[in-house]
């Protein structure tokens, strides 16, 4: 029985999950109270740690099975042909997974240029290796957004089907048209530059006024953040009961609702978008978010807190079908073999899973007006360097 300090008829002020002195509790009750008190820590230990360690251990096993040793700072990764400490691959996965997860994309569009320019992994194998990362990296975020109810499979379905049809074509383009690293980096540069323009433009008053839905969502988000700050809480911009619900579903039309807003989608258009982005993204070896996010924002005015419900499942689907095409379809049909560096990809992916999960937990605390210009400037600078280097050889390596 709980103490009530002699105030009969009043409820005890002791929290329900803290047992009073002298009362024995079972292990289950203790676990329950731990989970209730530290839900994020519980989620991290239950979902993320097994996934991160599992992928890392798989990387170690594959290294010994494929190469007979563990590559790293002393011995190079055979397919990549470069020496890199394993902690650096984990870190690269973490920061690319985190920053890209915040804008609803996979690590690929950052990890691919980083692998080529900083780590000097420039062979064609970098594209399928990057697809290993973009396939595994969103699982952490996927679980995080699913538990946070930022989730709607109807929104993702048609885009994913488009990816299944389009992504097997991309590897053929990569091998026959873009095998030289300089033009390939030029194309990546264009992708980065477009992404940069879109990230920067989204926070301008012109853009926000143009898209009424974005503006109304932003006003609600900012108001909620202000209220949280005034109450001395973490500045969270989304309500605890935030949901993305399907209002109507057919072969032609899809209608969803979120936080008092509604949006309709033309299903064949969604399928076509998924297909085209699938072809381009698998040719480059990225998840496709860099194209999908601007398209969905421009056509439908979706805020990034809703976009992730479509982009994360899309990236996973595109990456696995693209990877199968690189490793199975392409060699079967053409005899050209493009192997990914499995251990390189798995080490980066284990860091990226952690980064993407952390992004899913912190995204709603981070205001778009700071995040997007920052990422826009970084991607724009790298993109410009790649484009310039295609036309005029720069005096330093890019």
């Amino acid at each position: 029985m709980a103490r009530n300090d002699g105030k009969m008829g009043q409820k005890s002020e002791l929290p329900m999950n803290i047992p009073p002195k002298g009362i024995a509790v079972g292990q289950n009750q203790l676990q329950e109270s731990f989970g209730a008190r530290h839900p994020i820590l519980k989620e991290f230990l239950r979902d993320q740690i097994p996934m991160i360690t599992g992928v890392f251990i798989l990387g170690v096993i594959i290294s010994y099975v494929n190469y007979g040793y563990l590559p790293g700072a002393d011995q190079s990764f055979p397919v990549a042909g470069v020496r890199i400490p394993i902690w650096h691959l984990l870190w690269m996965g973490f920061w690319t997974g985190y920053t890209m997860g915040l804008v609803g994309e996979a690590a690929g569009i950052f990890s691919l240029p980083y692998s080529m320019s900083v780590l000097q992994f420039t062979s064609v194998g970098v594209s399928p290796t990057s697809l290993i990362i973009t396939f595994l990296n969103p699982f952490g975020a996927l679980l995080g957004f699913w538990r946070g109810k930022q989730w709607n499979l109807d929104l993702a379905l048609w885009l994913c089907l488009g990816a299944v049809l389009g992504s097997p074509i991309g590897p053929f383009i990569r091998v026959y048209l873009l095998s030289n690293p300089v033009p390939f980096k030029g194309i990546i540069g264009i992708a980065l530059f477009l992404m940069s323009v879109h990230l920067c433009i989204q926070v301008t008053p012109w853009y926000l006024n143009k898209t009424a839905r974005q503006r109304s969502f932003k006003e609600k988000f900012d108001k909620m953040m202000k209220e949280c700050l005034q109450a001395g809480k973490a500045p969270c911009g989304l309500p605890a009961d935030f949901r993305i619900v399907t209002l109507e579903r057919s072969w032609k039309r899809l209608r969803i609702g979120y936080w008092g807003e509604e949006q309709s989608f033309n299903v064949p258009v969604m399928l076509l978008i998924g297909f085209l982005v699938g072809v381009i993204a698998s040719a480059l070896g990225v998840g496709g978010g860099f194209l999908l996010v601007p398209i969905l924002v421009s056509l439908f005015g979706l805020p990034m807190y809703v976009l992730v419900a479509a982009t994360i499942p899309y990236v996973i689907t595109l990456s696995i079908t693209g990877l199968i095409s690189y490793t199975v379809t392409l060699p079967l049909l053409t005899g050209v073999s493009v192997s990914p560096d499995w251990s390189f990809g798995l080490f980066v992916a284990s860091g990226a899973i952690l980064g993407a999960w952390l992004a899913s937990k912190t995204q709603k605390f981070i205001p778009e007006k700071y995040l997007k210009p920052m990422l826009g400037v970084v991607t724009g600078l790298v993109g410009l360097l790649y484009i310039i280097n295609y036309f005029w050889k720069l005096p330093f390596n890019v």
Partner: protein
Amino acid sequence: MGKLKEIGLQLIPFLPFLILAVAIVVAIYHIKFYW
């Protein structure tokens, strides 16, 4: 401890900036010692 947690939560919006800064430092380290 509670105060510390509160300050930590208020700093979350700056986390991407911090992570990006560390990423640049690590990249420079790699270029210097592994190229």
